[in-house]
């Protein structure tokens, strides 16, 4: 009796449970298959964007979405990264390289159909430079006459800033000094125009975080417009029929997923929920390599992984010590056996072929010379060398790297090195207050020009943080390079400056980053460039024949 009851009770409940669980089950089309049919791209985007306001946002995930929704005066060619017409149809540069005159296209429209002209740029840029807005990329504007002064509040009349609408379709920009990379900056989202009426409808011009970027409110000028924004779920954009180049756009929409967890993202890709991943888990790269899987795309990236040395520390003040440290990092070993994802050993700050610039190579792996340098500095065979600490933000990859370097220094220099990991914000705090000895760092270029990697180490550069200061270096970057007559001459000045930097070595470059993505075979015409920049107007989807 008892036995009978328990088995029938159990069977009944099990049946109920299974039916509950499987009730939702059914055959359904994958995102990729559906997207290929409807022209919707499913894009892994890393994290939830903080903001879609181009004058407030700061990150790469934000960038991916904003460039779908907006356009600047120019945009970069996805292959050469040279500027091409955007809202501006054409432009001229004065002989002294200081005055840029842009002729705007007459068919530019906002996504609500409003006419889009030169006055939009003047208003938008005056907004972007309001200190209260907290635009972290305001420095993109600083080559413009009086932009920095206006931003600091030294002048309050925007008329005095070098931005003028000569007429509805002509915009004139006057620079302080010739700035050969100025056109590059114009493609950064912080210099995109915004729709005045929309912004004023939801708050003051300099008010940070109003609701104008919400779904239903957003007005942009790009190839797509905002359809839905569900926090932590997805952001969906759809074709903007008012976009001047709408006829050439092949995609009907893009769905951006905040794929915070890189292993989840990889599983989503395998289950065909994504066409494109933001990243690939480090330990999966080799698996894809071994399988010769064409989905894996690894491309060099305009970014350098390096160690900062705090030159204010007594024993690190001696450049012979810094050079000894720099010469005993076996970068080939690190990229080949620790990183294993195609990273390139770096012997200078600027990545090779940054707009035709190849940095000087004065650094090399040379333990013999390093030991001699350390001995000359008063530490023969590492004796008496103070225990030195490497600081890094908590991350498995950074830890592996630090352990390997700790080992190398111990082996080649016989010095004691300890490791300290700190949570991200604590690490930022330690680094910017100079409370470290050696710390891990990375720099990703905002624009393709050596200047972006070298002006970091100006004496009062906010991102310097090493305490290193060299007036001659400052002069080369601030005065000599901007006035160089030709591109070659300018690159020669950078070579000179970087040679100084690499001789003094307040930073130890380690490797040039790569970007890693998984790409579904139906996704066509993706670009391969060092900025990891894609143009959604060029990408298209092609269903596989089966």
């Amino acid at each position, binding site marked *: 009796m008892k036995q009978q009851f*328990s088995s029938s009770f159990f069977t009944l409940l099990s049946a109920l449970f299974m039916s509950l669980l499987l009730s939702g089950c059914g055959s*359904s089309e994958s995102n990729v298959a559906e997207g290929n049919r409807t022209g919707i791209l499913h894009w892994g985007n890393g994290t*939830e964007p903080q903001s879609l306001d181009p004058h407030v946002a700061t990150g790469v995930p934000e960038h991916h979405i904003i460039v779908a929704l907006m356009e600047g005066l120019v945009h970069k060619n996805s292959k050469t990264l040279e500027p091409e017409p955007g809202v501006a149809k054409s432009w001229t540069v004065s002989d002294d390289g200081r005055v840029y005159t842009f002729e705007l296209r007459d068919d530019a429209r906002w996504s609500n159909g409003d006419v889009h002209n030169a006055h939009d740029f003047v208003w938008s840029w005056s907004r972007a430079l309001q200190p209260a*807005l907290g635009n972290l990329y305001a420095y993109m504007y600083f080559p413009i006459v009086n932009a920095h002064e206006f931003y600091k509040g030294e002048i309050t009349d925007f008329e005095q800033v070098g931005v003028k609408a000569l007429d509805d379709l002509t915009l004139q920009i006057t620079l302080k000094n010739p700035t050969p990379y100025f056109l590059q900056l114009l493609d950064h989202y912080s210099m995109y125009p915004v729709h005045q009426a929309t912004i004023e409808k939801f708050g003051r011009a300099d008010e940070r975080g109003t609701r104008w970027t919400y779904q239903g409110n957003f007005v942009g000028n790009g190839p797509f417009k905002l359809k839905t924004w569900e*926090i*932590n779920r997805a952001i969906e954009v759809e074709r903007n029929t008012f976009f001047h180049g709408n006829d050439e756009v092949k995609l009907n929409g893009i769905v951006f997923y905040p794929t915070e967890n890189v292993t989840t993202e990889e599983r989503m890709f395998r289950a065909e929920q994504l066409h494109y991943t933001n990243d690939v888990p480090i330990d999966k790269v080799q698996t894809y390599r071994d399988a010769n899987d064409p989905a894996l795309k690894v491309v060099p990236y305009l970014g350098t992984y390096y160690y900062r040395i705090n030159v204010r520390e007594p024993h690190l003040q001696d450049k012979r010590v810094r050079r000894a440290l720099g010469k005993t990092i076996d970068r080939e070993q690190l990229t080949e056996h620790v990183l294993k994802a195609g990273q390139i050993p770096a012997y200078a700050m600027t990545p090779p072929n940054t707009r035709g610039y190849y940095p000087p190579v004065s650094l090399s792996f040379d333990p013999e010379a390093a030991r001699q340098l350390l001995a000359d500095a008063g530490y023969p065979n590492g004796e008496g060398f103070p225990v030195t600490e490497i600081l890094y933000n908590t991350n498995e990859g950074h830890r592996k790297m630090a352990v390997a370097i700790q080992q190398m220094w111990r082996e080649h220099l016989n010095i004691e090195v300890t490791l300290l990991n700190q949570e991200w914000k604590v690490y930022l705090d330690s680094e910017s207050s100079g409370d470290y000895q050696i710390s891990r760092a990375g720099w990703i270029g905002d624009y393709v020009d050596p200047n972006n990697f070298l002006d970091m180490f100006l004496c009062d550069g906010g991102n310097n943080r090493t305490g290193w200061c060299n007036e001659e270096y400052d002069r080369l970057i601030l005065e000599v390079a901007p006035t160089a007559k030709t591109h070659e001459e300018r690159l020669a000045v950078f070579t000179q400056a970087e040679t100084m930097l690499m001789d003094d070595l307040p930073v130890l470059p380690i490797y040039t980053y790569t970007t890693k993505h998984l790409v579904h075979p139906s996704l066509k015409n993706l670009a391969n460039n060092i900025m990891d920049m894609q143009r959604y107007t060029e990408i298209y989807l092609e269903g596989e024949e089966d």
Partner: protein
Amino acid sequence: MFKFALGRLLQAIPVLLVVITMTFLLVHSAPGGPFSADKAVPEAVLVALEAQYNLDQPLWQQYFSYLGDVLRGDLGPSFKYPGRDVNELIMSGLGTTAELGFYAMMVAIFIGVIAGVTASMRPNTMQDYVPMTAAMIGICMPSFLLGPLLVLIFGIHLEWLPVSGWNEIPGDKILPAITLGTGYAAYIARLSRGGMLEVLSQDYIRTARAKGLSEFLIIGKHALRGGLIPVVAFLGPAFAGLLGGSFVVETIFQIPGLGRFYVQAAFNRDYTMILGTTVFFATLIILFNLLSDMLAIWLNPKLRQQVRGDS
């Protein structure tokens, strides 16, 4: 019963005040501010930003104005997501997390009670050992292991169920619910086995058996009510724990819930978001504890007597 509930709610006020004060002091003393970033933030911008969020005021002033806002039900603006306020962010994730928590709880109760009751009916036989060993494994298996394992089997190899998402593809709620529910199922199994064993040895059950009642009635009507009291007492805190602890599962399955906000807020030093979610979860825990106590009183005649006696 009403008096009991009211008394408990009044007790909650000082508890919440302590929670708010401690959290407030802790977040403000953590190194690194909400606006520190990889790229240097110009001084002028920092000043403007701090002024905008009242961070330039003395700490005590910030504290009292925050308390005032909380009383009015306003948890303030998020620092990390300009334009979103904490209320809005909590509401955006709450529904999803509550739904996930509910399904997980259903899974937990369903598996747990069946396993526990089955085991208790024949203690120290295979019918006991098998479900209890499984329960032990369930307790030990962390969700960050179980989740990916289930995904690999059911999502990628068998292709039966979606590997991520929530309310997007039919069936995408199944794996997260099982992943989150399993650990709790294991607890419930052990609790219900213990509770049932105790009840089944009592005189009134013997009486029921002597009367010749069917085993179904004995278990279903007489034993379960008493045997599940430990489970009920566990449910309140467990549900609050499910909501707060769903972070791992939400991350594994790409679910837009509250747990992700909670953890990210701490990493981002999003002061108002940390405080807001903490206050919110503290309130939930207090409420669920109260509810489960009330349920326990209703189920247990002895306790009912006590409460009446008190009031």
